[in-house]
Protein backbone atom coordinates (compact mmCIF):
# COMPACT_ATOMS: atom_id res chain seq x y z
CA UNK A 1 0.00 0.00 0.00
CA UNK A 2 1.40 3.41 -0.95
CA UNK A 3 1.74 6.32 1.50
CA UNK A 4 -1.17 8.07 -0.18
CA UNK A 5 -3.41 5.06 0.36
CA UNK A 6 -2.70 5.03 4.09
CA UNK A 7 -4.47 8.35 4.51
CA UNK A 8 -7.63 6.77 3.13
CA UNK A 9 -10.17 5.66 5.73
CA UNK A 10 -9.97 1.92 6.30
CA UNK A 11 -13.58 1.23 5.31
CA UNK A 12 -13.00 3.24 2.13
CA UNK A 13 -9.91 1.14 1.38
CA UNK A 14 -11.99 -2.04 1.55
CA UNK A 15 -14.72 -0.55 -0.65
CA UNK A 16 -12.17 0.64 -3.21
CA UNK A 17 -10.79 -2.91 -3.37
CA UNK A 18 -14.27 -4.39 -3.85
CA UNK A 19 -15.32 -2.04 -6.65
CA UNK A 20 -14.08 -3.01 -10.08
CA UNK A 21 -12.29 -0.57 -12.33
CA UNK A 22 -14.54 1.59 -14.47
CA UNK A 23 -17.67 0.52 -12.59
CA UNK A 24 -20.78 2.68 -12.44
CA UNK A 25 -21.37 3.57 -8.82
CA UNK A 26 -24.25 5.14 -6.92
CA UNK A 27 -23.30 6.35 -3.45
CA UNK A 28 -26.37 6.78 -1.26
CA UNK A 29 -25.70 9.27 1.49
CA UNK A 30 -22.44 10.32 -0.14
CA UNK A 31 -21.81 13.25 2.23
CA UNK A 32 -18.97 15.44 0.98
CA UNK A 33 -18.26 12.95 -1.78
CA UNK A 34 -14.90 11.79 -0.42
CA UNK A 35 -15.48 8.13 -1.26
CA UNK A 36 -16.91 8.88 -4.70
CA UNK A 37 -13.94 11.05 -5.54
CA UNK A 38 -11.58 8.25 -4.47
CA UNK A 39 -13.46 5.73 -6.59
CA UNK A 40 -13.29 8.02 -9.60
CA UNK A 41 -9.58 8.80 -9.14
CA UNK A 42 -8.33 5.37 -8.08
CA UNK A 43 -10.67 3.07 -9.96
CA UNK A 44 -11.81 5.19 -12.91
CA UNK A 45 -15.41 4.77 -11.79
CA UNK A 46 -18.41 6.66 -13.06
CA UNK A 47 -20.11 7.95 -9.97
CA UNK A 48 -23.31 9.58 -8.82
CA UNK A 49 -23.98 10.69 -5.28
CA UNK A 50 -27.22 11.09 -3.40
CA UNK A 51 -27.22 13.38 -0.40
CA UNK A 52 -29.89 15.13 1.67
CA UNK A 53 -27.67 17.84 3.21
CA UNK A 54 -27.62 20.98 1.06
CA UNK A 55 -24.16 22.10 2.24
CA UNK A 56 -22.68 18.75 1.28
CA UNK A 57 -24.08 19.16 -2.24
CA UNK A 58 -21.88 22.25 -2.79
CA UNK A 59 -18.82 20.33 -1.63
CA UNK A 60 -19.62 17.46 -3.99
CA UNK A 61 -20.03 19.87 -6.88
CA UNK A 62 -16.67 21.44 -5.99
CA UNK A 63 -15.12 18.02 -6.45
CA UNK A 64 -16.69 17.83 -9.89
CA UNK A 65 -19.13 15.12 -8.89
CA UNK A 66 -22.64 14.39 -10.09
CA UNK A 67 -24.89 14.59 -7.08
CA UNK A 68 -28.61 14.52 -6.42
CA UNK A 69 -30.19 16.39 -3.53
CA UNK A 70 -32.79 13.86 -2.48
CA UNK A 71 -33.84 11.59 0.32
CA UNK A 72 -32.54 8.03 0.03
CA UNK A 73 -35.93 6.76 1.17
CA UNK A 74 -37.70 8.10 -1.92
CA UNK A 75 -34.90 8.77 -4.36
CA UNK A 76 -34.16 5.33 -5.75
CA UNK A 77 -37.39 4.76 -7.65
CA UNK A 78 -36.16 7.01 -10.47
CA UNK A 79 -33.33 4.76 -11.57
CA UNK A 80 -33.79 1.93 -14.03
CA UNK A 81 -33.01 -1.71 -13.19
CA UNK A 82 -29.32 -2.58 -12.84
CA UNK A 83 -28.39 0.95 -13.86
CA UNK A 84 -25.32 0.76 -11.62
CA UNK A 85 -22.65 -1.87 -11.02
CA UNK A 86 -22.45 -0.94 -7.35
CA UNK A 87 -24.78 0.87 -5.01
CA UNK A 88 -23.10 1.97 -1.80
CA UNK A 89 -24.88 2.54 1.51
CA UNK A 90 -21.98 3.31 3.81
CA UNK A 91 -23.02 4.55 7.26
CA UNK A 92 -26.35 5.73 5.91
CA UNK A 93 -28.65 2.72 6.23
CA UNK A 94 -29.24 3.21 9.95
CA UNK A 95 -30.59 6.70 9.21
CA UNK A 96 -33.23 5.79 6.67
CA UNK A 97 -36.91 5.31 7.45
CA UNK A 98 -37.44 2.16 5.42
CA UNK A 99 -34.16 0.24 5.40
CA UNK A 100 -35.66 -2.93 3.96
CA UNK A 101 -37.20 -1.09 1.01
CA UNK A 102 -34.01 0.88 0.48
CA UNK A 103 -31.79 -2.23 0.39
CA UNK A 104 -34.15 -4.06 -1.95
CA UNK A 105 -34.36 -0.98 -4.17
CA UNK A 106 -30.57 -0.69 -4.10
CA UNK A 107 -30.35 -4.32 -5.23
CA UNK A 108 -32.79 -3.54 -8.04
CA UNK A 109 -30.86 -0.57 -9.44
CA UNK A 110 -27.42 -2.04 -8.69
CA UNK A 111 -25.84 -5.35 -9.63
CA UNK A 112 -24.07 -5.41 -6.29
CA UNK A 113 -24.66 -3.46 -3.12
CA UNK A 114 -22.13 -2.42 -0.51
CA UNK A 115 -23.49 -1.74 2.96
CA UNK A 116 -21.57 -0.35 5.92
CA UNK A 117 -23.30 -0.44 9.31
CA UNK A 118 -22.31 0.53 12.84
CA UNK A 119 -22.46 -2.43 15.20
CA UNK A 120 -24.73 -1.61 18.11
CA UNK A 121 -23.74 -4.87 19.84
CA UNK A 122 -20.04 -4.19 20.10
CA UNK A 123 -18.58 -5.48 23.36
CA UNK A 124 -18.28 -1.96 24.82
CA UNK A 125 -21.92 -1.27 24.12
CA UNK A 126 -22.91 -4.58 25.69
CA UNK A 127 -20.90 -3.81 28.80
CA UNK A 128 -22.51 -0.40 29.18
CA UNK A 129 -25.95 -1.90 28.97
CA UNK A 130 -25.07 -4.69 31.37
CA UNK A 131 -23.10 -2.82 34.04
CA UNK A 132 -24.47 0.69 33.80
CA UNK A 133 -27.97 -0.17 32.72
CA UNK A 134 -27.85 2.63 30.16
CA UNK A 135 -28.21 2.83 26.44
CA UNK A 136 -24.63 2.84 25.16
CA UNK A 137 -22.74 5.97 24.18
CA UNK A 138 -19.31 5.05 22.79
CA UNK A 139 -16.71 6.60 20.53
CA UNK A 140 -18.28 4.93 17.50
CA UNK A 141 -21.83 5.44 18.78
CA UNK A 142 -21.44 8.94 20.17
CA UNK A 143 -25.08 10.00 20.34
CA UNK A 144 -27.44 10.31 23.25
CA UNK A 145 -30.88 8.79 22.75
CA UNK A 146 -32.45 12.22 22.24
CA UNK A 147 -30.12 13.58 19.57
CA UNK A 148 -29.13 10.57 17.51
CA UNK A 149 -29.60 10.66 13.74
CA UNK A 150 -29.78 6.88 13.86
CA UNK A 151 -33.24 5.49 13.45
CA UNK A 152 -32.21 1.83 13.38
CA UNK A 153 -30.13 -0.07 15.88
CA UNK A 154 -28.74 -3.33 14.65
CA UNK A 155 -25.83 -5.69 15.04
CA UNK A 156 -23.85 -7.52 12.38
CA UNK A 157 -25.74 -10.64 13.36
CA UNK A 158 -29.07 -8.86 12.85
CA UNK A 159 -27.94 -7.79 9.42
CA UNK A 160 -26.91 -11.33 8.46
CA UNK A 161 -30.34 -12.61 9.53
CA UNK A 162 -31.97 -9.85 7.54
CA UNK A 163 -30.05 -10.86 4.40
CA UNK A 164 -30.90 -14.51 4.87
CA UNK A 165 -34.61 -13.79 5.34
CA UNK A 166 -34.73 -11.59 2.26
CA UNK A 167 -32.86 -13.87 -0.10
CA UNK A 168 -29.82 -11.63 -0.26
CA UNK A 169 -26.41 -13.26 -0.73
CA UNK A 170 -23.54 -11.96 1.35
CA UNK A 171 -20.55 -12.19 -0.98
CA UNK A 172 -18.11 -10.77 1.53
CA UNK A 173 -18.15 -9.48 5.09
CA UNK A 174 -15.48 -7.39 6.78
CA UNK A 175 -15.54 -6.32 10.42
CA UNK A 176 -13.62 -3.16 11.25
CA UNK A 177 -12.36 -1.88 14.58
CA UNK A 178 -10.60 1.48 14.36
CA UNK A 179 -8.46 1.11 11.25
CA UNK A 180 -8.01 -2.63 11.54
CA UNK A 181 -9.81 -5.63 10.22
CA UNK A 182 -11.33 -7.78 12.96
CA UNK A 183 -10.28 -11.42 12.58
CA UNK A 184 -12.85 -13.26 14.72
CA UNK A 185 -16.10 -12.78 16.70
CA UNK A 186 -17.04 -9.86 14.47
CA UNK A 187 -20.36 -9.21 16.20
CA UNK A 188 -18.48 -8.70 19.47
CA UNK A 189 -15.37 -6.83 18.37
CA UNK A 190 -16.20 -4.97 15.16
CA UNK A 191 -17.37 -1.36 15.41
CA UNK A 192 -18.41 -1.45 11.81
CA UNK A 193 -19.51 -4.17 9.45
CA UNK A 194 -18.99 -3.91 5.71
CA UNK A 195 -20.97 -6.15 3.40
CA UNK A 196 -20.83 -6.93 -0.28
CA UNK A 197 -24.28 -8.09 -1.33
CA UNK A 198 -26.00 -9.54 -4.33
CA UNK A 199 -29.50 -10.79 -5.02
Amino acid at each position, binding site marked *: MSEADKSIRFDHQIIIKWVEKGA*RVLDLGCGDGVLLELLIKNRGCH*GTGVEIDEKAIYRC*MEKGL*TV*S*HIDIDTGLA*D*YSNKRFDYVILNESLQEVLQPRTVILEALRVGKKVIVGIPNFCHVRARLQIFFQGRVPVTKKLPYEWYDTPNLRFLSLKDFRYFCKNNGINILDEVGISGSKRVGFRLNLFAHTGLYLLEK
Partner: protein
Amino acid sequence: MHIVETQYYTFAGPPQELKLKSGVSLGPITLAYETYGTLNKDKSNAIMVFHSLTGDAHAAFYHKGEEKPGWWDTMIGPGKGFDTDKYFVICVNVLGGCRGSTGPASINPKTGKPFGLSFPFVTIDDMVAAQKHLVDHLGIKKFLCVAGGSMGGLQALIWATRYPDYVESVIAIATNTRHTAQQIALHEVARQAIMGDPDWQGGDYYGKSIPARGLALARMIGHITYMSDKSMDEKFGRKLIAKERLGYDFSHDFEVENYLKYRSGNFVQRFDANSYLYISKSLDYFDLSSDGKLTDVFAKAGAHFLVISFTSDWLYPSYQSKEMVRALKANDLDVSDIEINSSYGHDAFLVEVEGQTKLISHFLARMQKGAAHV
Protein backbone atom coordinates in the same frame (compact mmCIF):
# COMPACT_ATOMS: atom_id res chain seq x y z
CA MET B 1 -16.43 48.64 -16.25
CA HIS B 2 -17.25 46.37 -19.18
CA ILE B 3 -19.27 48.01 -21.93
CA VAL B 4 -21.45 45.99 -24.26
CA GLU B 5 -23.52 46.89 -27.26
CA THR B 6 -26.65 45.10 -28.40
CA GLN B 7 -26.27 43.50 -31.84
CA TYR B 8 -28.96 42.59 -34.33
CA TYR B 9 -29.40 39.78 -36.80
CA THR B 10 -32.14 39.75 -39.42
CA PHE B 11 -33.19 36.61 -41.29
CA ALA B 12 -36.23 34.77 -42.66
CA GLY B 13 -36.87 37.41 -45.29
CA PRO B 14 -39.57 36.36 -47.78
CA PRO B 15 -39.86 33.82 -49.24
CA GLN B 16 -37.85 32.06 -46.50
CA GLU B 17 -40.13 33.01 -43.64
CA LEU B 18 -40.02 31.09 -40.39
CA LYS B 19 -42.94 28.71 -40.12
CA LEU B 20 -44.34 29.01 -36.61
CA LYS B 21 -45.92 26.25 -34.59
CA SER B 22 -49.34 27.77 -35.18
CA GLY B 23 -48.83 27.21 -38.92
CA VAL B 24 -48.45 30.91 -39.67
CA SER B 25 -45.24 32.12 -41.32
CA LEU B 26 -43.32 35.16 -40.13
CA GLY B 27 -40.50 37.08 -41.73
CA PRO B 28 -38.26 38.92 -41.87
CA ILE B 29 -37.30 38.46 -38.23
CA THR B 30 -34.79 40.49 -36.30
CA LEU B 31 -33.22 39.20 -33.10
CA ALA B 32 -31.42 41.45 -30.65
CA TYR B 33 -28.52 39.75 -28.87
CA GLU B 34 -25.48 40.47 -26.78
CA THR B 35 -22.26 38.55 -26.28
CA TYR B 36 -19.77 38.57 -23.45
CA GLY B 37 -16.27 37.08 -23.49
CA THR B 38 -14.47 35.65 -26.49
CA LEU B 39 -15.42 32.70 -28.66
CA ASN B 40 -12.39 30.41 -28.85
CA LYS B 41 -10.95 29.09 -32.10
CA ASP B 42 -12.79 25.78 -32.16
CA LYS B 43 -15.96 27.49 -30.93
CA SER B 44 -16.22 25.10 -28.02
CA ASN B 45 -16.66 27.59 -25.16
CA ALA B 46 -20.04 29.06 -26.09
CA ILE B 47 -22.81 29.28 -23.52
CA MET B 48 -26.29 30.52 -24.27
CA VAL B 49 -28.27 32.08 -21.46
CA PHE B 50 -31.98 32.82 -21.80
CA HIS B 51 -34.01 35.53 -20.21
CA SER B 52 -37.31 35.28 -18.38
CA LEU B 53 -40.72 36.80 -19.22
CA THR B 54 -39.77 40.46 -18.90
CA GLY B 55 -36.01 40.20 -19.45
CA ASP B 56 -34.04 41.07 -22.54
CA ALA B 57 -30.77 40.47 -24.37
CA HIS B 58 -28.90 42.78 -21.99
CA ALA B 59 -27.87 40.08 -19.52
CA ALA B 60 -24.56 41.52 -18.32
CA PHE B 61 -22.07 44.38 -18.46
CA TYR B 62 -23.08 48.01 -19.03
CA HIS B 63 -24.57 49.87 -21.93
CA LYS B 64 -22.62 53.04 -22.61
CA GLY B 65 -23.69 55.83 -20.28
CA GLU B 66 -26.02 53.63 -18.23
CA GLU B 67 -25.74 53.14 -14.49
CA LYS B 68 -27.36 49.73 -14.21
CA PRO B 69 -25.76 46.59 -15.62
CA GLY B 70 -27.61 43.75 -17.36
CA TRP B 71 -30.18 41.66 -15.51
CA TRP B 72 -27.83 38.73 -14.73
CA ASP B 73 -24.63 40.70 -14.25
CA THR B 74 -24.17 39.10 -10.83
CA MET B 75 -23.65 35.75 -12.55
CA ILE B 76 -22.01 36.67 -15.88
CA GLY B 77 -18.60 38.34 -16.01
CA PRO B 78 -14.91 37.82 -15.31
CA GLY B 79 -14.52 35.40 -12.39
CA LYS B 80 -18.29 35.02 -11.98
CA GLY B 81 -20.44 31.89 -12.28
CA PHE B 82 -20.47 32.19 -16.05
CA ASP B 83 -16.85 33.30 -16.23
CA THR B 84 -16.37 35.45 -19.33
CA ASP B 85 -12.58 34.98 -19.06
CA LYS B 86 -13.25 31.36 -19.97
CA TYR B 87 -16.56 31.29 -21.78
CA PHE B 88 -18.32 33.10 -24.58
CA VAL B 89 -21.81 33.94 -23.38
CA ILE B 90 -24.73 34.86 -25.65
CA CYS B 91 -28.14 36.16 -24.68
CA VAL B 92 -30.93 36.77 -27.22
CA ASN B 93 -34.12 38.75 -26.77
CA VAL B 94 -36.96 36.35 -27.51
CA LEU B 95 -39.12 36.44 -30.60
CA GLY B 96 -42.27 38.30 -29.60
CA GLY B 97 -40.30 40.52 -27.22
CA CYS B 98 -40.08 44.28 -27.26
CA ARG B 99 -36.42 44.93 -26.61
CA GLY B 100 -34.99 44.84 -30.12
CA SER B 101 -36.34 41.53 -31.40
CA THR B 102 -39.34 41.27 -33.69
CA GLY B 103 -42.56 41.42 -31.72
CA PRO B 104 -46.05 42.94 -31.72
CA ALA B 105 -44.63 46.47 -31.43
CA SER B 106 -42.50 45.99 -34.57
CA ILE B 107 -43.56 47.44 -37.90
CA ASN B 108 -45.40 44.95 -40.10
CA PRO B 109 -43.60 45.31 -43.45
CA LYS B 110 -46.83 44.54 -45.28
CA THR B 111 -48.79 47.42 -43.74
CA GLY B 112 -46.07 49.82 -42.61
CA LYS B 113 -47.79 49.92 -39.21
CA PRO B 114 -47.05 48.15 -35.90
CA PHE B 115 -48.30 44.56 -35.83
CA GLY B 116 -50.35 44.86 -32.66
CA LEU B 117 -52.62 41.85 -32.43
CA SER B 118 -51.93 40.92 -36.06
CA PHE B 119 -48.61 39.60 -34.83
CA PRO B 120 -48.74 35.80 -35.04
CA PHE B 121 -48.82 33.67 -31.91
CA VAL B 122 -45.37 32.52 -30.88
CA THR B 123 -44.46 29.57 -28.68
CA ILE B 124 -41.30 28.82 -26.71
CA ASP B 125 -40.50 26.39 -29.54
CA ASP B 126 -40.73 29.24 -32.03
CA MET B 127 -38.44 31.41 -29.91
CA VAL B 128 -35.85 28.63 -29.92
CA ALA B 129 -36.30 27.97 -33.65
CA ALA B 130 -35.52 31.65 -34.26
CA GLN B 131 -32.46 31.48 -31.98
CA LYS B 132 -31.24 28.50 -34.00
CA HIS B 133 -30.98 30.74 -37.08
CA LEU B 134 -28.75 33.15 -35.17
CA VAL B 135 -26.64 30.27 -33.81
CA ASP B 136 -26.10 28.91 -37.32
CA HIS B 137 -25.18 32.40 -38.46
CA LEU B 138 -22.58 32.60 -35.67
CA GLY B 139 -21.23 29.20 -36.75
CA ILE B 140 -21.63 27.55 -33.35
CA LYS B 141 -22.18 23.81 -33.66
CA LYS B 142 -22.29 22.95 -30.00
CA PHE B 143 -22.93 24.88 -26.82
CA LEU B 144 -20.88 23.98 -23.79
CA CYS B 145 -24.03 24.89 -21.91
CA VAL B 146 -27.49 26.34 -22.35
CA ALA B 147 -28.77 27.94 -19.17
CA GLY B 148 -31.69 29.87 -17.84
CA GLY B 149 -34.07 30.48 -15.00
CA SER B 150 -37.85 30.56 -15.13
CA MET B 151 -38.89 31.04 -18.78
CA GLY B 152 -35.18 30.93 -19.63
CA GLY B 153 -35.09 27.38 -18.33
CA LEU B 154 -37.93 26.38 -20.66
CA GLN B 155 -35.91 27.58 -23.64
CA ALA B 156 -32.89 25.61 -22.43
CA LEU B 157 -35.02 22.47 -22.19
CA ILE B 158 -36.36 22.96 -25.72
CA TRP B 159 -32.79 23.33 -26.99
CA ALA B 160 -31.78 20.12 -25.19
CA THR B 161 -34.66 18.09 -26.62
CA ARG B 162 -35.04 19.66 -30.05
CA TYR B 163 -31.39 20.20 -30.96
CA PRO B 164 -29.63 17.66 -28.72
CA ASP B 165 -26.48 17.66 -30.85
CA TYR B 166 -26.03 21.34 -30.11
CA VAL B 167 -26.12 20.98 -26.36
CA GLU B 168 -23.36 19.57 -24.16
CA SER B 169 -25.04 20.58 -20.92
CA VAL B 170 -28.10 22.29 -19.47
CA ILE B 171 -28.53 24.41 -16.37
CA ALA B 172 -32.26 24.65 -15.60
CA ILE B 173 -33.07 26.98 -12.73
CA ALA B 174 -36.45 27.50 -11.04
CA THR B 175 -38.23 26.12 -14.05
CA ASN B 176 -40.50 23.26 -15.07
CA THR B 177 -41.54 21.05 -17.94
CA ARG B 178 -45.11 22.26 -18.31
CA HIS B 179 -47.07 25.25 -17.14
CA THR B 180 -49.60 24.33 -14.48
CA ALA B 181 -53.14 25.58 -13.93
CA GLN B 182 -51.97 27.97 -11.20
CA GLN B 183 -49.37 29.52 -13.46
CA ILE B 184 -51.84 29.86 -16.32
CA ALA B 185 -54.41 31.38 -13.96
CA LEU B 186 -51.96 34.00 -12.67
CA HIS B 187 -51.02 34.92 -16.23
CA GLU B 188 -54.64 35.15 -17.24
CA VAL B 189 -55.33 37.65 -14.46
CA ALA B 190 -52.39 39.71 -15.70
CA ARG B 191 -53.62 39.57 -19.28
CA GLN B 192 -57.13 40.56 -18.23
CA ALA B 193 -55.64 43.53 -16.40
CA ILE B 194 -53.99 44.69 -19.64
CA MET B 195 -56.91 43.96 -21.92
CA GLY B 196 -59.35 45.51 -19.47
CA ASP B 197 -57.55 48.84 -19.66
CA PRO B 198 -59.52 51.10 -22.08
CA ASP B 199 -56.18 52.40 -23.36
CA TRP B 200 -55.33 48.93 -24.64
CA GLN B 201 -57.73 49.55 -27.57
CA GLY B 202 -57.65 46.02 -28.87
CA GLY B 203 -53.86 46.13 -28.93
CA ASP B 204 -53.78 49.06 -31.35
CA TYR B 205 -52.38 51.71 -29.01
CA TYR B 206 -49.05 52.47 -30.67
CA GLY B 207 -48.52 56.17 -31.12
CA LYS B 208 -51.45 56.81 -28.78
CA SER B 209 -51.72 56.50 -25.02
CA ILE B 210 -50.46 53.12 -23.81
CA PRO B 211 -52.38 50.81 -21.44
CA ALA B 212 -50.15 51.87 -18.58
CA ARG B 213 -52.58 51.09 -15.76
CA GLY B 214 -53.31 47.60 -17.05
CA LEU B 215 -49.66 46.78 -17.63
CA ALA B 216 -48.71 48.16 -14.22
CA LEU B 217 -51.34 45.97 -12.60
CA ALA B 218 -50.05 42.94 -14.52
CA ARG B 219 -46.56 43.71 -13.27
CA MET B 220 -47.77 44.07 -9.67
CA ILE B 221 -49.34 40.63 -9.83
CA GLY B 222 -46.09 39.34 -11.32
CA HIS B 223 -44.01 40.85 -8.55
CA ILE B 224 -46.14 39.25 -5.88
CA THR B 225 -45.67 35.85 -7.48
CA TYR B 226 -41.89 36.35 -7.65
CA MET B 227 -41.63 36.88 -3.90
CA SER B 228 -42.65 34.76 -0.94
CA ASP B 229 -44.73 35.41 2.15
CA LYS B 230 -41.52 35.43 4.17
CA SER B 231 -39.47 37.62 1.84
CA MET B 232 -42.27 40.19 1.66
CA ASP B 233 -42.67 40.20 5.39
CA GLU B 234 -38.92 40.62 5.90
CA LYS B 235 -38.68 43.37 3.30
CA PHE B 236 -41.79 45.39 4.11
CA GLY B 237 -43.58 43.95 7.10
CA ARG B 238 -46.38 46.35 7.98
CA LYS B 239 -44.16 49.39 7.69
CA LEU B 240 -46.02 52.59 6.86
CA ILE B 241 -44.88 55.11 4.26
CA ALA B 242 -43.76 58.33 5.94
CA LYS B 243 -46.76 58.35 8.22
CA GLU B 244 -47.21 57.82 11.90
CA ARG B 245 -50.60 56.22 11.66
CA LEU B 246 -53.07 54.75 9.22
CA GLY B 247 -54.74 57.25 6.91
CA TYR B 248 -58.23 55.75 6.97
CA ASP B 249 -58.57 56.44 3.25
CA PHE B 250 -57.50 54.71 0.03
CA SER B 251 -54.22 56.48 -0.39
CA HIS B 252 -51.20 54.26 0.14
CA ASP B 253 -50.45 53.43 3.75
CA PHE B 254 -47.97 50.57 3.51
CA GLU B 255 -44.48 50.34 2.08
CA VAL B 256 -45.40 47.26 0.12
CA GLU B 257 -48.04 49.28 -1.72
CA ASN B 258 -45.49 51.91 -2.61
CA TYR B 259 -43.01 49.31 -3.75
CA LEU B 260 -45.47 47.73 -6.14
CA LYS B 261 -46.43 51.13 -7.52
CA TYR B 262 -42.80 52.17 -7.98
CA ARG B 263 -41.65 48.94 -9.60
CA SER B 264 -44.63 48.70 -11.93
CA GLY B 265 -44.25 52.36 -12.89
CA ASN B 266 -40.68 51.69 -14.03
CA PHE B 267 -41.76 48.61 -15.87
CA VAL B 268 -44.40 50.37 -17.93
CA GLN B 269 -41.69 52.64 -19.32
CA ARG B 270 -39.64 49.78 -20.70
CA PHE B 271 -42.05 47.02 -21.65
CA ASP B 272 -44.73 46.67 -24.30
CA ALA B 273 -48.13 45.48 -23.07
CA ASN B 274 -48.78 43.37 -26.15
CA SER B 275 -45.43 41.61 -25.70
CA TYR B 276 -46.55 40.78 -22.17
CA LEU B 277 -49.70 39.20 -23.60
CA TYR B 278 -47.86 37.20 -26.26
CA ILE B 279 -45.00 35.99 -24.10
CA SER B 280 -47.17 35.07 -21.12
CA LYS B 281 -49.40 33.08 -23.46
CA SER B 282 -46.38 31.30 -24.95
CA LEU B 283 -45.47 30.26 -21.42
CA ASP B 284 -48.96 28.93 -20.80
CA TYR B 285 -48.79 26.90 -24.00
CA PHE B 286 -45.55 25.32 -22.86
CA ASP B 287 -45.82 21.60 -22.17
CA LEU B 288 -42.74 19.57 -22.98
CA SER B 289 -44.73 16.36 -22.64
CA SER B 290 -47.62 17.40 -24.88
CA ASP B 291 -46.57 14.81 -27.46
CA GLY B 292 -46.16 11.98 -24.99
CA LYS B 293 -44.57 10.99 -21.72
CA LEU B 294 -41.97 13.28 -20.22
CA THR B 295 -39.49 10.41 -19.98
CA ASP B 296 -39.86 9.85 -23.73
CA VAL B 297 -39.26 13.53 -24.43
CA PHE B 298 -35.92 13.43 -22.66
CA ALA B 299 -34.95 10.23 -24.48
CA LYS B 300 -33.77 12.52 -27.27
CA ALA B 301 -31.59 14.56 -24.91
CA GLY B 302 -27.99 13.58 -24.37
CA ALA B 303 -26.85 16.52 -22.30
CA HIS B 304 -25.53 16.70 -18.75
CA PHE B 305 -27.97 18.49 -16.47
CA LEU B 306 -27.80 20.73 -13.46
CA VAL B 307 -31.26 21.41 -12.05
CA ILE B 308 -31.63 24.10 -9.38
CA SER B 309 -34.80 24.94 -7.45
CA PHE B 310 -35.65 26.95 -4.34
CA THR B 311 -37.63 25.99 -1.26
CA SER B 312 -39.85 29.10 -1.15
CA ASP B 313 -40.53 29.39 -4.89
CA TRP B 314 -44.29 28.94 -5.24
CA LEU B 315 -44.48 30.10 -8.86
CA TYR B 316 -42.18 27.34 -10.10
CA PRO B 317 -42.27 25.06 -7.04
CA SER B 318 -39.36 22.71 -6.56
CA TYR B 319 -41.58 19.62 -6.87
CA GLN B 320 -41.78 20.51 -10.56
CA SER B 321 -37.99 20.51 -10.84
CA LYS B 322 -37.94 17.17 -9.05
CA GLU B 323 -40.39 15.75 -11.59
CA MET B 324 -38.00 16.83 -14.29
CA VAL B 325 -35.06 15.25 -12.49
CA ARG B 326 -36.95 11.96 -12.22
CA ALA B 327 -37.62 11.93 -15.95
CA LEU B 328 -33.98 12.70 -16.68
CA LYS B 329 -32.77 9.92 -14.40
CA ALA B 330 -35.18 7.49 -15.98
CA ASN B 331 -33.26 8.12 -19.20
CA ASP B 332 -29.94 7.34 -17.50
CA LEU B 333 -28.84 10.94 -18.06
CA ASP B 334 -26.17 12.62 -15.97
CA VAL B 335 -28.13 14.91 -13.69
CA SER B 336 -27.12 16.89 -10.62
CA ASP B 337 -29.87 18.64 -8.73
CA ILE B 338 -30.24 20.81 -5.68
CA GLU B 339 -33.10 22.48 -3.83
CA ILE B 340 -31.56 25.61 -2.33
CA ASN B 341 -32.99 26.72 0.97
CA SER B 342 -34.05 30.31 0.33
CA SER B 343 -36.82 32.64 1.45
CA TYR B 344 -36.72 34.78 -1.70
CA GLY B 345 -39.38 32.88 -3.63
CA HIS B 346 -39.04 32.75 -7.41
CA ASP B 347 -36.74 35.80 -7.29
CA ALA B 348 -34.19 33.55 -5.59
CA PHE B 349 -32.83 32.55 -8.98
CA LEU B 350 -31.64 36.15 -9.42
CA VAL B 351 -30.83 36.83 -5.77
CA GLU B 352 -29.11 33.70 -4.46
CA VAL B 353 -25.81 34.48 -6.14
CA GLU B 354 -23.24 32.89 -3.85
CA GLY B 355 -24.52 29.33 -3.88
CA GLN B 356 -25.37 29.36 -7.57
CA THR B 357 -21.96 30.79 -8.45
CA LYS B 358 -20.33 27.80 -6.77
CA LEU B 359 -22.64 25.26 -8.36
CA ILE B 360 -22.50 26.73 -11.84
CA SER B 361 -18.76 27.43 -11.98
CA HIS B 362 -17.87 23.91 -10.83
CA PHE B 363 -20.43 22.31 -13.11
CA LEU B 364 -19.12 24.26 -16.11
CA ALA B 365 -15.52 23.42 -15.20
CA ARG B 366 -16.42 19.73 -15.29
CA MET B 367 -18.19 20.17 -18.62
CA GLN B 368 -15.17 21.91 -20.07
CA LYS B 369 -12.84 19.19 -18.84
CA GLY B 370 -15.15 16.71 -20.49
CA ALA B 371 -15.00 14.61 -17.35
CA ALA B 372 -18.46 13.20 -17.21
CA HIS B 373 -18.56 10.71 -14.40
CA VAL B 374 -21.80 9.02 -15.23
